[in-house]
């Protein structure tokens, strides 16, 4: 039960966070980059079955016969960006409430069943989608399908369970955002990046709006969006599509289409003529940093090849130890302790390209930002080399092979792609499209999209007490 940032397939963290031993590097941003760059695709890959049931439920089956386990996911095409203004956090709150039971499987029967079968479960909310999953030994798949199909339309809620859960969500907001200065800055940057589009709202919601969410709000939201024709079933693992189809028909096939869902027409961004800058001061900041996001196309809205060019551009700029930002600012000039870039492209309406850095002692944020700008300007002016382009392509495309070793990752890629307007074929052909990008296309993407007018730059600062005269 967690949430994802704007339409971006973050790894599905365990619900429990932290642990007795703190890890060293653990910059959340770096983890995002590592996962985000490649994402979304597969070359040869497994033999995927994809079809739609008469009730409108889209089905994707991804065989991986190596271990006797399955990953069973249902993705709804509804997320934080579909909330009514004033009710931010509702999609995520409802996600929590889906664990509260149905008439047929009351209270925590579903979770208790998953636990007693040795399964694992969780759920997640993003701007464009909400997903639920279980991982179980394959012989229990049918039962999971029965229970998940049941809660698609038969959720039972009461004031008694809704109240404590709202407190859980408020504690989650504390853990994720309020206790974390970098996350607070991230919220501010997101809000400033979107002048009009609901992607500017935090997925977890603004605190005062979460506090006001009610039982009635949650139920109304459920009755607006939870229907088989607004969902995608993804099953990955030790299954045979031929054997599975009748079971899917007998479970999910029996869920009646509840209503038609309106097209997801969100208010779109106007022209953005003004670069935005902001800063956030917090007494807990020990390490200042600068972070900028550019509004760019998503893989769904980009012209052919553009999104792949952005994948490669962000990797060359800031994906790891060989990237231009890291080499220039951290290694060669020794001005920063970290620097990098990332592209969040899995989204219905907009993607974002981010750059960031944390200065070493003796370097000011202004100086570091100027150095970051110089690296970006160099790519805009002179493009990338054939050699670094090749290295970036090989690195990104290899992730498509590595993903074949991980059924949950495959399930997440396909689910996120289909929930944000891409197709199975798009995912499969991604490596091929990356291969085709040439240096000119990467430079063109840099020129077109590293446009300061369509960006927000945020500084995270240490709050110091005001000097007394």
């Amino acid at each position, binding site marked *: 039960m967690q949430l994802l940032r704007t339409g971006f397939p973050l790894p599905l963290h365990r*619900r*429990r*966070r*932290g642990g*007795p*031993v*703190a890890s*060293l*590097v653990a910059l959340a941003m770096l983890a995002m980059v590592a996962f985000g760059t490649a994402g979304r695709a597969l070359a040869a890959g497994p033999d995927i079955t994809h079809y739609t049931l008469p009730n409108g439920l889209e089905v994707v089956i991804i065989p*991986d*016969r*190596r*271990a*006797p*386990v399955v990953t069973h996911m249902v993705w709804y095409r509804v997320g934080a960006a579909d909330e009514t203004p004033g009710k931010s956090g509702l999609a995520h709150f409802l996600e929590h409430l889906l664990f509260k039971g149905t008439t047929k499987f009351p209270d*925590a029967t579903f*979770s*208790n*069943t998953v*636990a*007693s*079968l*040795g*399964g*694992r*479960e969780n759920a997640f909310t993003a701007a464009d989608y909400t997903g639920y999953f279980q*991982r*179980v*030994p394959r012989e229990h798949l049918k039962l999971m399908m029965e229970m998940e199909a049941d809660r698609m339309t038969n959720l039972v809620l009461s004031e008694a369970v809704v*109240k*404590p859960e709202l*407190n*859980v*969500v408020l*504690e989650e907001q*504390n*853990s994720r955002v309020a*206790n974390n200065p970098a996350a607070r800055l991230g919220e501010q940057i997101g809000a400033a990046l979107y002048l009009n589009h609901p992607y500017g709202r935090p997925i977890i919601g603004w605190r005062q709006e979460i506090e006001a969410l009610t039982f009635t709000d949650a139920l109304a939201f459920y009755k607006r969006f939870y229907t088989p024709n607004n969902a995608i079933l993804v099953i990955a693992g*030790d299954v045979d599509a031929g054997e599975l189809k009748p079971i899917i028909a007998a479970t999910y096939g029996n869920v009646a289409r509840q209503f038609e869902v309106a097209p997801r027409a969100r208010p779109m961004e106007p022209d953005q003529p003004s670069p935005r800058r902001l800063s956030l001061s917090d*007494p*807990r900041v*020990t390490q200042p940093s600068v972070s900028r996001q550019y509004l760019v196309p998503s893989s769904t809205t980009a012209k052919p090849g553009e999104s792949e060019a952005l994948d490669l551009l962000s990797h060359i700029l800031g994906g*790891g*130890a*060989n990237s231009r930002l890291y*080499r220039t600012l951290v*290694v060669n000039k*020794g001005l920063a*302790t*970290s620097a990098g870039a990332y592209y969040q492209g899995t989204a219905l309406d907009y993607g974002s390209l981010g750059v960031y850095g*944390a200065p070493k002692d003796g370097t000011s944020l202004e100086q570091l930002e100027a150095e970051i700008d110089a690296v970006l300007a160099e790519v805009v002016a002179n493009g990338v080399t054939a050699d670094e382009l090749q*290295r970036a392509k*090989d*690195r990104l495309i*290899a*992730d498509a*092979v*590595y993903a074949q*070793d991980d*059924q949950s990752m495959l399930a997440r890629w396909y689910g996120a792609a289909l929930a944000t307007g891409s197709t199975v074929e798009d995912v499969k052909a991604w490596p091929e499209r990356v291969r085709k990008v040439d240096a000119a296309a990467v430079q063109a993407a840099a020129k077109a999209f590293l446009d300061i007018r369509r960006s927000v730059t945020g500084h995270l600062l240490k709050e110091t007490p005001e000097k007394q005269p």
Partner: protein
Amino acid sequence: MIAVQRSLLLKTAAALLLAFAVQIAVAMNPARATTIERIVSPGGIEAWLVRDSAVPLVSMEFAFHGGASQDPADKPGVATMMAALLDEGAGDLDSATFADRLERKAIELRIRAGRDTIRGALRTLSDNRGEAFELLRLALNAPRFDAEPVERIRAQMMAGLRRATTSPEDIASRRWWETAFPGHAYGRPVNGSLDSVPTITADDLRTYHKRILARGTLKIGIVGDIDAEAAKTMLDQVFGGLPAKAKLNNVVTMAPQGLGQRISETLAVPQAVVLFGGSGIPREDPDFMAAYVVNHILGGGSFSSRLYREVRETRGLAYSVYNSLVWLDHAALFMGATATRADRVDESIAIISAEIHRMAEEGPTEDELKNAKAYLTSSYALGLDTSTKIATQLVQIQLDDLGIGYIDRRAGLIDAVTLADTRRVAKRLFGGGMLVSTVGPAATSVPAPSAAGTLLAPPAAQPPASGNTVR
């Protein structure tokens, strides 16, 4: 509803010996049997191998005994820093060249220090495995510790340590460990301190490297598209040049101190972090599996544990609450955590204490035991569905010295736990009190009334243990 784990039936084929493969049949799937082979290279290096050519990659995990517990007493952070620098230049390759060669072939190499081990993970496409093994050989045998990467990694460690000074989780954890293990290696921070890290020299790193990276304590797991012969050649190439024996400093076994105490630190954050822990049961103790089951029922990895139900589900006090067993080479622990509003800290601790006390006094119910056994048996396969996860498990089983047949025996060990065992062991595990470390707004520093007195009684000293955190 007891799901027997059919998948990981291991059969011992031959009884041991000589260089060549004790073969264990792992029926990963009726359609495709896989085997764990124990291979020994001509140079005498042992590894466990699962061959699987379905995906064209090789995943290898390895561990050396040592870790941060072998840091010089006055210089915590040496192991962490050394581990971070192994892939920052080696042999003739400077840092930039090394990183370039890794990325060009999409080779993933990660090496890190834990409390008791230096662990590494290598992942490569099959086509690139020659280059991957060569780069790993260089990293392990001929790290350079050049000035530029040493200073860069030092700056990154210092930045992380500074951030940790205002992170409630990090503060709570540091204070718990230094209070529980005063004067002991486990009381020192794995990532070093703001005082120690500036003093670490390249020579410290070299000395540590020479002492600890040795064949004698090496455990290796290999999974993927490589056969036994090629793997054996690789073992000698990569690890053959290391010294035979590690020079390990003696670390004494110690029970955690301060049980019954609550330590608090004030930090201006909206939400307080609560970390708690006490004496556990050693991995090799006959009661370990019963303790594992009991812990699962109290605070383990499902949405149905007692702590989850009482703290989160019923009262909405926290987003996250758990307890787990931690077995280290020189201490056995249970540890848990939660995070809650400042004005609910005392209540949360009281509830957790009461649940721990109740478990110690009454043990689990028949139903809970049945469900826990089913969960722990069936869920094991979920941890073995990628090459990397299997390789990690192969190394862990070796570190815990459980034998190559463990995957086969495990379900039987869990099933053999009786209700009487769990009641006896619950008392042993949770009857001894705990040390609580809280960090949060001022309200939380008021001493908590202990609901059931479980904070009070210090336990008897515990015998040694080995291993790692597992939920």
